[in-house]
């Protein structure tokens, strides 16, 4: 396939330039056919697969979104991993380990999906390592108490599920498929978090207060996980036109608020929003403004733990380098041994 630019200079016609113009025409034809097929797939709400032609911006948008999602799963292990040694019982510890292991798995499913778009895995890891890539801001908040682990499971994973269920139908096949796996596994995460809070809110006065404090801390940041309000989210519209996103940030946020109000009531805990009330006319709960200045400040790197999260990731990656190298060296040696044995046998 030609790598020539389709732009032609008005030079004397020679055999070579004829060849170039033919190649350029062929490339242009292919792009046009590819574009038409892509538009048709989107219009018919069908899936785009890795080797299909797709517009550069569609590819770029997906690489960014899917890899950010993967990075979030990986960094998201930290606030909870931090509590494995301090879980209050063996059962809670086993559950927490299973959950953290799931997050690692979810990161890997998503990296695989991102990789099918043509960005190698190592490049994706590098982007996180160097701090070039973003991940969900929520993970820059600390898990201060055991109750925070409950609030993270209930509110953070709850918000993630609300966001992820429609992504199962994302137009890019590998992304949708990885989301299906993730959603199946994620439902236990939210329930176990809710149960942690339930135990605490039905315990001593002190335990109930600890649960309330955790909910107070995570309510706002969890609602912000859906991203900025619709009028400040310029990329959303294009993502929805491409069937990557199915609902706007505010629609998903509303859905989440409507869901958690009765869940909080069942816990006997209060959501820290004085403006939260049922709106008969809309058939939804009204909720108060969120602190978007804080949100953007955390996104920019000024959250409580942005620095530590990245430093911890780098240390884990650096400290594991010898394991990866040893495994590769062993594989190379085995391959050489097999090759030698085959030669000797011949």
């Amino acid at each position: 396939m030609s790598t020539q630019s389709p732009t032609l200079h008005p030079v004397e016609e020679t055999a070579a330039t004829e060849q170039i113009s033919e190649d350029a025409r062929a490339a242009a034809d292919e792009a046009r056919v590819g574009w038409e097929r892509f538009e048709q797939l989107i219009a018919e709400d069908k899936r785009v697969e890795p080797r299909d032609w797709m517009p550069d911006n569609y590819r770029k948008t997906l690489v960014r979104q899917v890899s950010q999602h993967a990075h979030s799963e990986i960094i998201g292990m930290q606030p909870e991993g931090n509590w494995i040694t301090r879980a209050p019982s063996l059962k809670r510890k086993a559950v927490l380990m299973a959950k953290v292991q799931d997050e690692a798995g979810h990161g890997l499913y998503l990296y695989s999906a991102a990789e099918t778009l043509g960005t190698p895995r190592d490049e994706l890891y590098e982007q996180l390592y160097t701090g070039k890539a973003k991940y969900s801001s929520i993970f820059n908040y600390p898990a201060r108490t055991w109750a925070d682990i409950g609030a993270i499971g209930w509110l953070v994973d709850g918000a993630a599920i609300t966001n992820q269920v429609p992504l199962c139908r994302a137009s890019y096949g590998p992304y949708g498929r990885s989301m299906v796996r993730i959603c199946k596994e994620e439902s236990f995460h939210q329930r176990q978090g809710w149960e942690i809070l339930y135990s605490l809110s039905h315990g001593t006065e002190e335990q109930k207060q600890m649960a309330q404090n955790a909910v107070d801390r995570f309510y706002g940041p969890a609602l912000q996980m859906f991203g900025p309000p619709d009028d400040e989210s310029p990329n959303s519209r294009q993502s929805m036109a491409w069937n990557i996103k199915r609902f706007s940030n505010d629609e998903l946020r509303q859905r989440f608020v409507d869901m958690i109000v009765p869940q909080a009531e069942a816990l006997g805990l209060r959501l820290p929003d004085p403006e939260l009330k049922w709106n008969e006319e809309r058939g939804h709960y009204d909720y108060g403004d969120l602190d978007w200045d804080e949100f953007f400040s955390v996104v920019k790197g000024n959250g409580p733990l942005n620095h530590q999260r990245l430093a911890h990731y780098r240390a884990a990656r650096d400290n594991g380098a010898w394991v990866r190298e040893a495994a590769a060296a062993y594989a190379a040696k085995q391959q050489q041994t097999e090759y030698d044995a085959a030669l000797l046998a011949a």
Partner: protein
Amino acid sequence: MTKPEQNAEQIPDGGVIATDPADRSLWPLWEVFVRSSRGLSHVHAGSLHAPDASMALRNARDLYTRRNEGTSIWVVPTAEIAASDPDSKGGYFESAQGKAYRHATYYTQSEGVPHL
């Protein structure tokens, strides 16, 4: 201008371990197929990176069968998979088009006749 090559899945050289020490962390990509229970086919579950087949199998077990999803796993180097060209969809599968008579539903005369 986007060329079809740029759209192809970028796959590292499967099964070939880079000998350059600087590149040693570049593990090849493997496709994972899981048989969910006896009597069923292995079905594609996803992919992962691993230095060799035995590590790929172990990683596949940890990654794709954490909830009893499988009784057997295959791993195949991604680079070893030959695939039909996605750009020739129409043409390549054309001979199956317009041959409704290959399906039982094409034959309607027997409607109402038992066991047919």
